[in-house]
Each structure stands twice: as C-alpha cells, then as structure tokens.
C-alpha cells in the first residue's frame, strides 16, 4: 500500500512484466481525507434515502410491506407445492383474483400460489405433470389467449428455467434479507427502480417500436405467500388506471388457429392424465375479464373453441367465471384483474364450487357466509347497475 497516487507510468501491471513471477501489487491510495468524506457520504445518502422514502410513500403511494415477487420467491413456493394438498398455477389473473385467506377460511387449506405474471399456465401444468412428488389438487387458472397461444413459458421463463439455481443458499438468504428490508422500506419496489423510471420519459419517440412507456407498470401489491392484490392506485380512477388499461392494448392479437388449439389440448390431456395417474387431480379455472377485453378474447379464441373444447376433452373439471352467478359484474379496474375486494368475492364463489367438484376440498362447518357482488362493488355503482 502506498499513500498518495503514483505518478503516471509508475504503476506497473503484469502486462509490463512478461515471463516472471509477479510481485505483490502496489495499491496507491489517493491523498484525500477519506474518513471525513466517507462520513459525509454516509450522512448525505441517508438524507437522500429518507427523502426518497418520503416521496415513495406520499407521492407514489408505495407502502412498506409490499413485498416484491421474484423468481426466488417463486422457487420457494414451487418447492412448497411438492407436498401441498392444493397448489395454484396460472398467469396473473388467478394470481390477483385468488384470496388465499378466504380460500383457507372456507376449506381449512391454504393453497400454495405458484402462478407467475405473464406466464402460460399450460407450461406450469406440464411442470407439475413431470414432477413425481406432486400428488395434490392442482388448480390451473387461465387467460385463454396465453393458454392456447403460441408463446412458450412467457414472462416466468427465468423463474421456471432457473428453478434449481434459485433455491441455492445464496439466493435464499438474499430473499430473506430482501423481504425483511421491504417490511420497513417502501421505496424497495422493482417497478420504481432507477432504470425503470428513466426510460419512461420516452413516450413513443421512435415509430414501430414499443417504448418502455407502453409497458405494464406497477398494478399489484404483494403480501406474504405471494398473495397478489390490485394496487390501490389502479383501483382509483386516474392517470395510472388509464395507463394500465392502455398498456393491455385491448388484448388485440390475431385469431388462434384451431390446429394450435388442438395441439394445446392434446398436451393438456397428457399432462392431466399423468397427474391423475399418480393420485393427483386438476381443475381448471377461468377468472373474469372486463367486456372491453373479453370481446377481443372471444374474437381470438371463442369460448366454444377453447374452454368448452378443452373441458370436453381433458379428464378434468373446470369453473368458468361466466358460470358463477355470484361472480358477475365484479369490479375489474384495469379490465384484466379484479379489484382487491372483488378478488375475495370471486374466490368465495369459485372455492364453493370447487368443494362441489372435488372431494379433496370440503367446506368447513364454520365457513363464513357466502359473499355477493354487493360486498365489493361500490354501492352507487351497484345501484346504478340494478336500475339499468
């Protein structure tokens, strides 16, 4: 070590010493009041972080305890699902629209949530089908376009592909420390990282390519157990809700060819058969979507061609939101996922139906009374709906 920077050219590296044993390197320490600077930096960073935390809580509306989901958290849930009596796989809809606490209150069983946003539930179904350890009930939530579409795993690919790596000791400890910190700090939200915020300034400056402004921004809050709910700021009318609706682009896509649907169904049949052959079971659930999206979804994959065809072919039962009287006309703030309160109502409705479809789930004797639309739809909207 040397106090003071070496003059230019005097700091040699191995590149200057060919074919010889390399000596102990010299590290020169620039002459600066490092300890004093370190103290100043510590104070300034603490100050800036306090301001940023205040901004996150007040202006952005984040809260401490909103725990980011991650591939590591998914890996943890996936491991737990191996021995779980009930696991849920699917895309973001079943993830947002299932209230695990309500599920448990009704059945005594808390399901393990293994869904992942933007992820094809068929690939997750196959993931469980290939896992000899799983013998429970698998609830497969689906958004038809993703399930029958041509994409592979989707957004959850890193989680699924790196499942083993994400269970390594360093990943697990990182997950635990991260969770602990997020219980106290609101600004630790992956949707408000520096590199996510800055590119949003581009409002579509280049034609022909989607700018980051068009991406789906934060729409959820996550609670322990990977319990997703709609973020409060999306539930309230305003800029963020409008942006969230805009980001879906109406779910516009070309119609899915019947040949592809048939292929998906064949694979689904095989996956369900494998799970049932070793004593497990599968039930499909189709959560609701708003009419603004549903019209396009029906255009691209009509219910008769997709859902009905699937259920007529696979050796499994299913629950479609359309067929649940208590789940009609719920609040879907950004047209794709239910509001926090309506997720509880939908869960109540579909879990009661589940108990009729499978002996693996029984309604508890002390189960709370059924919920209705009025338990989640704001009164004035409900009244207006009634009049209409």
């Amino acid at each position, binding site marked *: *070590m040397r*106090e003071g*920077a*070496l003059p*230019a*050219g005097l*700091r040699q*590296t*191995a*590149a200057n*010493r*060919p*074919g*010889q*044993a*390399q*000596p*102990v*390197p010299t*590290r*020169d*320490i*620039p*002459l*600066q009041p*490092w*300890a*004093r*600077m*370190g103290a*100043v*930096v510590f104070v*300034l*960073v603490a100050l*800036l*972080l306090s301001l*940023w935390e205040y901004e996150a809580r007040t202006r952005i509306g984040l809260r401490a305890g909103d725990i980011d989901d991650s591939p590591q958290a998914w890996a943890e849930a996936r491991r737990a699902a191996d021995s779980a009596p009930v696991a849920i796989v699917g895309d973001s809809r079943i993830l947002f629209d299932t209230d695990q606490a309500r599920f448990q209150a009704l059945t005594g069983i808390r399901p393990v949530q293994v869904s992942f946003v933007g992820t094809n539930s068929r690939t997750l179904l196959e993931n469980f089908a290939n896992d000899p350890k799983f013998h429970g009930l698998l609830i497969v939530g689906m958004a038809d376009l993703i399930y029958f579409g041509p994409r592979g795993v989707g957004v959850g690919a890193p989680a699924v592909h790196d499942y083993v790596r994400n269970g*390594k*000791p*360093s*990943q697990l*400890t*990182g997950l635990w*420390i991260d969770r602990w*910190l997020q219980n106290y700090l609101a*600004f*630790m939200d*992956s949707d408000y*990282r*520096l*590199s996510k915020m*800055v*590119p949003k300034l*581009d409002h579509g*400056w*280049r034609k022909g*390519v*989607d*700018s*980051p402004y068009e991406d789906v921004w934060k729409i959820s809050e996550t609670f322990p157990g990977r319990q997703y709910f709609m973020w409060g700021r999306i539930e309230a009318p305003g800029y963020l809700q409008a942006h969230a609706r805009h980001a879906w682009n109406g779910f516009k896509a070309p119609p899915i060819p019947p040949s592809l649907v048939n292929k998906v169904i064949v694979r689904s049949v095989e996956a369900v058969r494998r799970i049932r052959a070793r004593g497990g079971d599968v039930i499909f659930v189709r959560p609701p979507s708003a009419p603004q999206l549903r019209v396009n979804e029906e255009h691209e994959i009509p219910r008769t061609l997709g859902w009905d065809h699937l259920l007529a072919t696979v050796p499994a039962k299913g629950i479609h939101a359309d067929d649940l009287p208590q789940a009609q006309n719920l609040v879907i703030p950004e047209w794709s996922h239910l509001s926090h309160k309506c997720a509880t109502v939908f869960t109540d409705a579909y879990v009661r139906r589940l108990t009729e479809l499978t002996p693996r789930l029984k309604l508890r004797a002390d189960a709370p009374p059924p919920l209705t639309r009025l338990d989640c739809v704001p009164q004035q909207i409900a009244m207006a709906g009634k009049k209409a």
Partner: protein
Amino acid sequence: MIFNSLTFLVFFAIVLALHYAPFFSWHQKKINLMIASYLFYAAWNPPFVILLWVSTVVDWWAAQWMVRARRERTRKLWMLTSVCVNLGMLGYFKYGGFLMQNFVAVAASIGIVYHPPGWDIVLPVGISFYTFATLSYTLDVYLRRSAPAGSFLNYALFVTFFPHLVAGPIMRPTELVPQFEEPRRANPNQMFFGLALLTLGLFQKVVVADGFLAPVVEAVYDQHDKVPGMLDSWVATLAFAGQIFCDFAGYSTSAIGVALCLGFAMPDNFRFPYGAVGFSDFWRRWHITLSSWLRDYLYIPLGGNRHGQARTYAALMGTMLLGGLWHGANWTFVVWGGLHGLYLSAERWLKARFKGFTPGRASLIALALLTFLLVNITWVFFRAKTFADAGVILTGMSGLAAKPSPLIAAGPMIIAVAIVTAIFGTHLAMRNTTLEAVIERTPSVAIAGIWTMLLFAVIVEQGQGSAFIYFAF
C-alpha cells in the same frame, strides 16, 4: 455469492468484524478468512467446494514433491500431474458437453450415427479462474520463478481468498501469499478508499451494466422474430461493449475494494481498455491478469517471438484461439479469440512495415476509434449464442439486412449511446493516467458528491442480484 447481493453485504460486514476483532491472532484470522471464503463459494453450490479442495491439495503436494525431486523427469512428472488434474477437472465440467457434441457431429459427418447419453453437468462457478490461479503456482515452481509457499494455510487461503475466487483478477501466488505472512489491516484511508471502489464497482455493474445497457442488448440479441437494421445492430453491439466492460471491470473494481478494506492489495485488471490504440495495447488494458497469464504460460512456452516470424504468428493465433475457448465451450468464443489473434497479427505486420510511424493527436484518436470499432465486431461473436445469430447482427451492422425492423426504443437507445460515448471518452482521456491520480487532483467536495450519487443510484436501482457475465466462464 455475488458482490451485488444483500447476502454479500451481511457476509462482508461479518468478515470485517471478525478481521478487525482484537481477540483473534493473525493465524486465527487467516483461518476465519478461509472459512468465510469457503462459505462464499459454497453459497452457490456446496458440493463444488470439493473441487476447490482437490485443486488445493493436489497443487500443494505437486509443488512440494517438485522441490524435493532430484531428477528433472520427476519434477516434470509432478508438474504434469498438476496440469492434468486441473485441466482434467476444467475439461470435464466445462468442455465435456462441447467435446461430446463435436464428436457426435464429426462422427455423423462420416456416416456414424451416435446418440450419447445426455451431458447434464452443472458448471462450477469460477472454475476457469481458480484453475488458472492454482496452475500458476505449480508452473511458477516448475519454471523456478518462485519457491513453494511456506505454509499450507497461506497457500490454501491464496486459492480460496474470496475477493478473487470466482471471477478474478487471476492472482499469482507470488502476488498474494507473501501478504498472508504478516498481519494485515487497512488504515482508515485504505478502508474508505476501498469502500469507494466497492461503490464504483457496484455502480458499474448494478446501474450501468444491468440497469441501462443489458435491456438494450437483449432487445436485439435475444429476439428472433425480427431482423435488426444497421442502427439497432450497432447500438446493441456498442451497448454490449459497455455492458461487458462495466460488468467485468465492475467486478474487478469491487474485488479490489473489498480486498483493500481487509488490508490486502490486488492487481489492476483493467486500464481504460477502450482508450487503447491498437490491439496489443488493448490486451495490455483488458483483463490484464488473464492476458498476462496466457502470455506467460502459453504464448512464451509456445515459442513467443523468439523463433522467427512464422512461429510468432502461430503462437499468437494459438494463444488467442485457446484464450477464446477459455471464455466458453462454444465455437463462437473460438472465433472471437481468432479474430483478436488476426488483429494482433495484422498489427504486428503493420508495425514492422511502418516502423517509423508516430501518430499525432488526431491520428491517435482515429486509431483508438478504429480499435474500438474493430473490437466491437468481435463482441458480436462473444454475445451471440450461435453463428446464425452473429450473422444476423453482422448483416444488420453492414446495412444489408432485408426488411429490418426497429427494435430499440428511442429513450433507451439515447441513454445507451450516451453511456458508451462517455465510457469511450473517459477511457481515451485517461489512457495515460490512473484513477487514483485523477481522484487525487480532484477536490474532495466533488469526490464526496460523486460518491454520494453513485451510492444513492446503486440503492435506488436496487438490482436484481443478477450474476456477473464472467461467472459463467
């Protein structure tokens, strides 16, 4: 474990506390450091610690027996034992699948159909780095460049010392073992300068490489539905040049900072490489500890420049091709190395042809720019997963892509170009100086301000704990 993880911050705080605890002897502190280093490595995949032990024990004994041997043949035998064990492990874990694939392809080309069982071997992280570090020990002893380490603990700690264990700088035993002989502790200046370097390294990795450059690279290199045009191909490749520098130099800077906090000196691994004028200059600045390792243990033994022109060019090409293969079990890496070999050969020929040429300031900048652009061509093969992918990017870069589509949004593109321009400009401006010299003549208020902003940016960026690119090598 990676530096840009919360786990590391907790780990490092504990290591520092133990290292500066007054009630431990120096011997005990070294044992603490070694246990910490094994934990650091085991956090990835505990069973692979066995490989570290094998490498440590075999090379220790090989060097011991080499010194005790009376006959030259015996010495050579022990050296070869060490080389075979180390390269054998590297070959099995890193190149086994690749060799099998090529064997199957060659067999198929002569009409033999062979279906081998699946080669499902996990690559132990950093195996290429610690294999080279331990090999340099036995090779230095064999070449009588240095004596064997005086104590097994010092040697084992040299192999496992966590700051350099998984991604370098590739240290030689003579650089580190002597530092373990006497108690080391950082004074306040060294400690805080080490923390400043750690901040700088994390900023390079978390904010620049992962946050702003990686998405631009992935938008072009990882999509296969659309064809990139000239602008997108060049911007993505330039962004990758920035990403890989910030990723790898960020790791090295962090490692140097971490070691400094513990009172140890580690060598420079990067010296503003994009300010290089020519390719020999580039390799004196890029991954210095690898290029000097290849020079000392491959290029020179292959004959170096002492056996005529033809042999020199052959040694150069051989070294660079193997250097390319060191980076990964894929022919694209070999081509990357081969291109650098060709560049170095061409430069050597041109230097001999124009001996008296001394570039002025303008030509120096032009030559640096040309070097940088040619280096970027090689990065295409480094980043692309297949030759077909590389072909698509190179076609795009040449402006010959049919029906290209825009792939990078304007905002991220502007940010990426600004970052890469800043990196190139900084490297060019600082090519004849050191970071330390620049820091020393900068007012402390400015340094504290920059340090604050870097640390704040790292924390606000949060990071996704993504692994460093070079961990895979």
